[in-house]
């Protein structure tokens, strides 16, 4: 996983609440079996009309936000479907950070596994960043995961919270499967105490290796 330490980038405001993962990446793009290449389909139905033409006034298509790498949005960002494709699409498009007043649980977990930082600020702070990113040309923020600090160098600064373990994993880009496997002894012992039920062993045989 790509580590995240500190990032400075242009902020684009997506001034909507409850942005669900069906909007972030519509279902017709979930049939791909790769993990890459989802960026071009990000917010597809908002970015492109039914006949595939670019919707020029959608916020991501405005030239001033072309290089944006920080997305700021309303509460409950990433709700709905568990599709990790939503995070892959955001990251592939070039986003490193999403700022919102709240995130759906599964989306936040998925982000963590892909080095996409979700920064939770309060409603007033989100509103202020949204306002500044609309009014100030080339508005940038610096997000520092080591100090848990966000600032724009022009008067806005905030701190955010993140549990220590998630922060540690992101900072070092840790392979958390590797971390879990460090507990091989405990897992093995648990499995000895809780074996697979006999019905699962017997009945599942028919379903294997056809």
């Amino acid at each position, binding site marked *: 996983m790509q580590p995240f330490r500190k990032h400075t980038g242009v902020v684009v405001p997506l001034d909507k609440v409850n942005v669900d993962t069906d909007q972030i990446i519509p279902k017709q793009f979930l049939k791909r079996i790769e993990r890459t290449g989802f960026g071009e389909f990000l917010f597809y139905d908002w970015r492109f009309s039914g006949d595939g033409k670019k919707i020029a006034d959608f916020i991501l298509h405005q030239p001033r936000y072309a290089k944006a790498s920080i997305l700021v949005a309303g509460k409950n960002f990433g709700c709905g479907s568990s599709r990790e494709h939503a995070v892959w699409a955001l990251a592939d498009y070039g986003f490193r950070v999403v700022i919102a007043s709240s995130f759906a649980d599964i989306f936040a977990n998925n982000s963590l596994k892909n080095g996409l930082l979700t920064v939770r600020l309060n409603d007033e702070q989100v509103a202020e960043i949204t306002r500044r990113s609309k009014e100030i040309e080339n508005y940038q923020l610096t997000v520092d995961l080591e100090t848990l600090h966000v600032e724009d160098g022009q008067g806005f600064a905030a701190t955010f919270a993140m549990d220590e373990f998630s922060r540690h994993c992101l900072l070092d880009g840790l392979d958390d499967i590797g971390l879990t496997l460090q507990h091989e002894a405990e897992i093995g012992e648990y499995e000895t105490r809780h074996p697979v039920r006999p*019905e699962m062993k017997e009945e599942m045989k028919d379903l294997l290796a056809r």
Partner: protein
Amino acid sequence: MPPRTLFEKIWDAHVVAAPEGQSALLYIDLHLVHEVTSPQAFDGLRTSGRRVRQPLRTVATVDHNIPTTPRGLPITDPIAAKQIEALQKNCREFGVPLFDMDSADQGIVHIIGPELGITLPGMTIVCGDSHTSTHGAFGSLAFGIGTSEVEHVLATQCLPQKKPKTLQIHVSGKLAEGVTAKDLALGIIGQIGTDGATGHVIEYAGDTVRGLSMEARMTLCNMSIEAGARAGLIAPDDTTFAYARGRRFAPKGKDWEEAVAGWRTLASDSGAKFDRVIEIDATSLAPFVTWGTNPGMVVAVTARVPELNSFAQDADRRAAEQALAYMGLDPGTPIETITVDRVFIGSCTNSRIEDLRAAARVAKGQHVNPKVRAMVVPGSQAIKRAAEQEGLHRIFLDAGFEWRESGCSMCLGMNPDILQPGERCASTSNRNFEGRQGRGGRTHLVSPMMAAAAAIAGHFTDIRNWRFQ
């Protein structure tokens, strides 16, 4: 030991390790797998040279993108076909049991787990699908995960997890005739919002919940995610045991008796503390219809589309305005005057035998409005067979409904079952998000009875006034 909630009992029983300064490592009893969220996870295993740690705790099926036309027909979408082939190949390579397209037990992953007795009380269950919360109806801790976590569970049978908070939703009173578990779920989400339970595991309790059938409990737990919950669960009881008993993968004989004795301890202790408690009066609920683009945008069928000035928060008012523009509705429109073009009865929320019986009761002796196209998609092959044995398919076909093969179908429109732009649909599914059932499609979430009634009337109508034949 201090009194514990049901959730805490299941959690405690599955903690493999609790390393200092890290999330707890939770053992996963059952991992359900489908074609859409797994290919990248299996690829990850191949890249890192890892195997599936517990193939017999892993169960796969195809449901999301398969057609609901007769099974012998080829899959016309080459990308969907490739994804299904990838799952077949991955299951063979990693030794994972698969209920394939042609299996007599194929069905929506959240339907077949319970139906086959694979889902049982007290388990930890995950799946790369947010509606995994369905299995909580059995008193299991069941939650949706992303593809990286799918890979994690395939490789380790464990997941590092932050402990969620607990929310008890206590429901009391009798649901009126025509008011179903779907309406209870929509009523709760309408009250607490689509982020009302974020970070929490919901335990549904109270005499109303005790009185629900397993099918109804699954509908209720299924919709927990639409309130943002990590999971939703209900303590197992005699209703649960009667449902699970004798199913193909359920314990038998002495093992069954021992299992039940253990499951009887799975209830929140008296005096157990929840982080939050919400009380719901079931007698105050009506059949609900969503008017907007998330499940929290919902009113009783007898009500009107809300006025914009009824929203206190600026962001909510703008969201409602955008939703109504998308839905092609004006504020103040009486719900019962809204006409529909399509009706979908199906999905992991409402495609079980009881749902089909309820819809058939409405459809019996009636005819689908000539302006409406209505389809019934059973949740599994077993449900389809059971319904056909009871003659439900005859009732639907005679009334002009399409009777199709099992799968997720128009709930998310990954297969050819989609809405055309501007089409309005009464749907028994779980999400009315923009474009969910097809780009430009307008989804209204309702119960199976309300959907069947809308198909016949051509518009939403209060099922409580229905003249059954």
